């Protein structure tokens, strides 16, 4: 049995092939990946400093998966994600200022501080939410896909989950439903090799997650999740199929999180060498940068400018979030239901 993520050490093949992707589109991917990288680079320390309450599941390292899939999603398509979700939200077009304020728990956040990091959502942007229950978002995306199918709309949904979620029953209920009903759904597994601190090879039987999915009779592919062009190609193929009534596609993207499961973890379950290898040889941002440079589309100045723009946008979001007011405590029992339920506040 091949271990799922043991591609560590296979340095050859680090270059990515942009193929015939137009340069402006590839440059747009870089902008989006840099926005995610800068957003996460700011959010992590803010969480560790206590300015952002609760946990923080950083998506640094996962940028190419979200941007590759996001590159084929239209504004009125839907995406839903698990607990690690900022990259998916930003790739779906969510406003980083609304996100940052929500992370801070502020009144100006996307859900006025009720969702936070783990339940970030912007239904207007087609981002149907982060989720503290792994794999649950796939079900929400599935329902949205069924709605789209009923209405005969060419819209599609993407449900993200991780290798941990791939060991839960609910995910496979969803995959079966999507396949049985030929729904316009991309099921995207971000396999980063670890469910919290448990290595996938210690927890998962079988050849691969994609091989599991293939048993449900839908196209199931495994791609290099640190290669945005490879993810894009797989997602584009799935999107064409989904939009034309051909049903769902399963994409297992092999990726790696540079930071811990949670930002504050001790990180004794993997070696510094392993992390550093992925950072040096498989950083999705740097691989795209190198491909653009090789094409002659980008130089160091251009890259620094793009990174600077992303950094400025995030800094603006942080300042606005810091300055924004907290929710009014008098509203704490409000908003639980659409109809009045006479909430008790205790005796």
């Amino acid at each position, binding site marked *: 049995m091949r271990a799922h993520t043991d591609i560590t050490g296979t340095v050859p093949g680090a270059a990515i092939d942009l193929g015939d992707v137009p340069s402006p589109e590839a440059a747009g991917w870089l902008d989006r990946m840099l926005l995610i990288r800068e957003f996460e680079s700011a959010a992590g320390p803010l969480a560790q400093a206590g300015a952002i309450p609760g946990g923080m599941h950083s998506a640094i390292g996962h940028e190419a998966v979200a941007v590759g899939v996001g590159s084929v999603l239209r504004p009125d398509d839907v995406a839903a994600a698990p607990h690690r979700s900022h990259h998916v939200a930003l790739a779906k077009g969510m406003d980083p200022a609304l996100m940052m304020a929500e992370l801070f728990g502020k009144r100006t956040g996307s859900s006025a501080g009720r969702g936070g990091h783990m339940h970030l959502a912007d*239904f207007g942007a087609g981002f*149907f939410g982060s989720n503290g229950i792994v794999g649950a978002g*796939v079900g929400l995306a599935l*329902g949205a896909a069924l*709605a789209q199918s009923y209405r005969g709309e060419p819209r599609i*949904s993407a449900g993200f989950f991780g290798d941990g979620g791939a060991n839960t029953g609910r995910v496979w209920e969803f995959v079966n*439903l999507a396949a049985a009903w030929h729904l316009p759904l991309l099921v995207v597994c971000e396999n980063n090799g670890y469910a919290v601190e448990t290595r996938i090879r210690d927890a998962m039987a079988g050849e691969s997650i994609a091989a599991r999915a293939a048993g449900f009779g839908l196209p199931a592919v495994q791609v290099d999740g640190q290669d945005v062009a490879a993810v894009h190609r797989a997602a584009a193929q799935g999107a064409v199929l989904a939009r034309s009534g051909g049903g769902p596609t399963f994409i297992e993207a092999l990726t790696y999180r540079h930071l811990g499961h949670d930002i504050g973890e001790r990180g004794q379950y993997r070696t510094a060498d392993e992390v550093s290898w992925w950072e040096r040889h498989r950083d999705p941002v740097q691989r795209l940068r190198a491909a653009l440079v090789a094409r002659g589309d980008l130089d160091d100045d251009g890259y620094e400018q793009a990174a600077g723009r992303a950094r400025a946008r995030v800094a603006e979001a942080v300042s606005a979030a810091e300055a924004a007011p907290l929710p009014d405590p008098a509203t704490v029992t409000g908003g639980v239901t659409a109809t009045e*339920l006479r909430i008790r506040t205790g005796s």
Partner: protein
Amino acid sequence: MTVLTLSKALNAGLRKALEDDPRVLVMGEDVGKLGGVFRVTDGLQKDFGEDRVVDTPLAESGIIGTAIGLALRGYRPVCEIQFDGFVFPAFDQIVSQLAKMRLRSLGQVTMPVTIRIPCGGGIGAVEHHSESPEALFAHTAGLRVVACANSTDAYAMIQQSIRCDDPVIFFEPKRRYWDKAEVDPAANLGAALPLDRARIVLDGTDVTLLCYGPMVRTCVESAVAARAEGRSVEVIDLRSLSPLDMETINGSVRRTGRCVVAHEAAVTGGLGAEIAARITEECFYQLESPVLRVGGFSTPYPPSRLEDHYLPDLDRVLDAVDRTFAV
């Protein structure tokens, strides 16, 4: 007016809801071609098509997950859970997702999902097919929990639930599916008792007997028997288990000064505990005796040959009524 069994009344209510609103969908295991194991959805797929009355795989978590996504896109799904015990595979989706979507998004979305659950025992089935899990849902903020007890209410309440913009857990007393009562399909739904209101089924002056779902008939029979012995028992069908109609409950208890709560579910941590606490908090100085509870034992639901011992019957209800006078 027409006389219908509770099962047929629910069928008529679902049919009306499907006719009235194209966003309404019925989904669940065997709800289409079979018409549901209790025939509640009989004939609906034939008349409304496979897209509106959907036979799902056997996958409760998948059914509720799908329903939430449908609701997010503007549909009003009505999910059938085939038997009460089968709701537990969907429990995660209900309490972790369905109940919390509204607050989590602070009003960006509504969750008009109705989950129908045949509940309770008394049909010779076993555990997983005879359970009363209502307290678990009443404990969960963000859900409405209701229980119908007769055909008349069933017809109106299922339509009210489907029209409600919040998720409703809709309990159907399975041993009463075949009980008959009058239903008026021409009646205006707006004139029906609101979904969150309790109904005084039988007026009385000596003691208030609170019940819901399958226990309503048992309690009415108990009250009739008590009357022969000179006790005037007021029977209230709670109908709404969350929120509780404390106005109606307190009004009655303040008049009678005595109260018994009866349900099939285990007494320990059951809804009766919450109701007794609320009455004690709000009517303490009008009470003549402690609020008593009658319910199932704190055991898994027993095999069918023992279920008559488990289910609260007329004798156990009347014994509790008598004990409220013993102080």
